[in-house]
């Protein structure tokens, strides 16, 4: 399978990555190579096989409903790229 430039573009946008036009071909062919590797999977009959999402099929452990976390805003926002009045700042969001 080969990925065309349009598809590479769409995936990049979905992943919020910018792929320059000059790199499109390179990415396209590298991704296609990986997909070719992956295509070996197709030959295998997996009907009736349950997908294995976790090694050893563990089940969810749940915690008691208790408040165990306090305010750490100052510490956390010390490493924020942009914050003010306790808020993280980002370019204007328009709905």
């Amino acid at each position: 399978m080969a990925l065309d430039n349009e598809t590479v573009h769409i995936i990049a946008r979905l992943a919020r990555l910018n792929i320059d036009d000059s790199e499109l071909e390179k990415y396209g062919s590298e991704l296609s190579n990986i997909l070719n590797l992956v295509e070996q999977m197709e030959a295998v009959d997996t009907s009736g096989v349950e997908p294995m999402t976790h090694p050893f099929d563990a089940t969810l452990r749940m915690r008691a409903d208790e408040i165990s976390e306090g305010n750490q805003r100052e510490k956390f926002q010390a490493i924020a790229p942009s914050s003010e009045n306790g808020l993280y700042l980002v370019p204007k969001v328009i709905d």
Partner: protein
Amino acid sequence: MTIITLAQLSADLDAGKVSSTELTQEYLQRIDASEHNAFISVDQELALTRAKDADAKRANGESSPLLGVPIAQKDIFCIDGTQTTCGSKILENFIAPYTATVVSNMHDHGVVSLGKTNMDEFAMGSSNETSHYGNVVNPWSSKGATLVPGGSSGGSAAAVSAQLAPAATGTDTGGSIRQPAAFCNLTGIKPSYGRCSRYGMIAFASSLDQAGPMTHTAEDAAMLLNTMVGFDSKDSTSLDVPAEDYTTQLNDSIEGLNIGLPKEFFGEGLKPEIATLIERAVKEYESLGANIKEVSLPNSHLALPSYYVIAPAEASSNLSRFDGVRYGYRTEEYTDLVDMYTKTRSEGFGDEVKRRIMIGAYALSSGYYDAYYSKAQKLRRLIANDFNDVFKECDVLMGPTTPSTAFSAGSNSDDPVAMYLNDIYTIPANLAGLPAASIQAGFTSAGLPIGLHIIAPYLQESKLLNVAHQYQKVTDWHTLSAPGASAHNVGEKA
């Protein structure tokens, strides 16, 4: 020049031959003088504070095997107040505001963290060449030919191999502990999935990632693993099983041990010289009383393709949090929100990370989920079932860790798929969640180390370490020091 083991340092500290402060200073000096680029950051002050603390504890009569022993930490673990980059530009300015459970467990045992080791960006790589912080030099490189240390835990492997630290932590998603261990003549253990908490270990592929020790010997690995593991309520995939001491079974006899050799691990692509060395290692086991039989893991050829769907898919989602909003790198100039996101991520991530994010996003995108992700998860079960079957007749499985030895920098970087083949033997254990080790098993004619890969059934780390230790008792490959190892010698000083 000989290797310095944790066991020896522990004994020396216990006997008062050396202090933690002296040891720590010695290693800090070695790190400072080394040219392997094994470390991304070193916090001398913090390390020495911990060392002094450990000395004070020993003076107070406290004792714990690794109390005051300095080790190196892969830069994938968050440690409160220290730079934690995960090998990426996007976290260059990230000072972690909390500590990973594995690290705090080790600190609780008195381990001194020397610094953070270099690694492939977000643990994606098999040569440490994807690091934003430069290539790492394999201490086994000969003059004129710089070899890679393997990856992604390449900095940790180089650090231990070059004796810049007596041991280090690594993480293993598809072979990232075992492959660099093989390339740098070390013992590397990937424990069962769920043994080591993943809390505070920056996620690559959540259902595969597992932390483990990288050491000179199986005994050291057992000692270090003892301080790393434990149930963690902060990790929903952490195993709630009773603690055990992995050193207790090291000296058990392995007479009658049933060793399976999956024929698929000896097929096309394996360098003949490596095959010969592995056969010799297996013979050694035979002489120790083990029974050898050929077995089959018929679906193992599907491990690589499944892995290259599952790992990128999970990674594409795990790495979405790096968006320049709450921490980490944010691009300088941007016109709007989408522009800020896109530039931040495009400038912050390297090529291999972008490639895997793209593959992952594609594999999960609508219309492809069943064909890729869901299919890969089904194959994963088939692969795990294969192991269940062979472990009915075998105690452990053996084979080569890698199909080839350490290669020179740049030789594989143009072809991602060729690079991925490095992990062809190690990936199945990750998919099945099994404990596995790479131990030193000799050298090629070019003088490069190779690794013997041992896979054990679920939760049988003690058996795995026992099997590794018994081999190291009768061989001396693990004692050979790399030509590029540090000239200083702690042992002499002590």
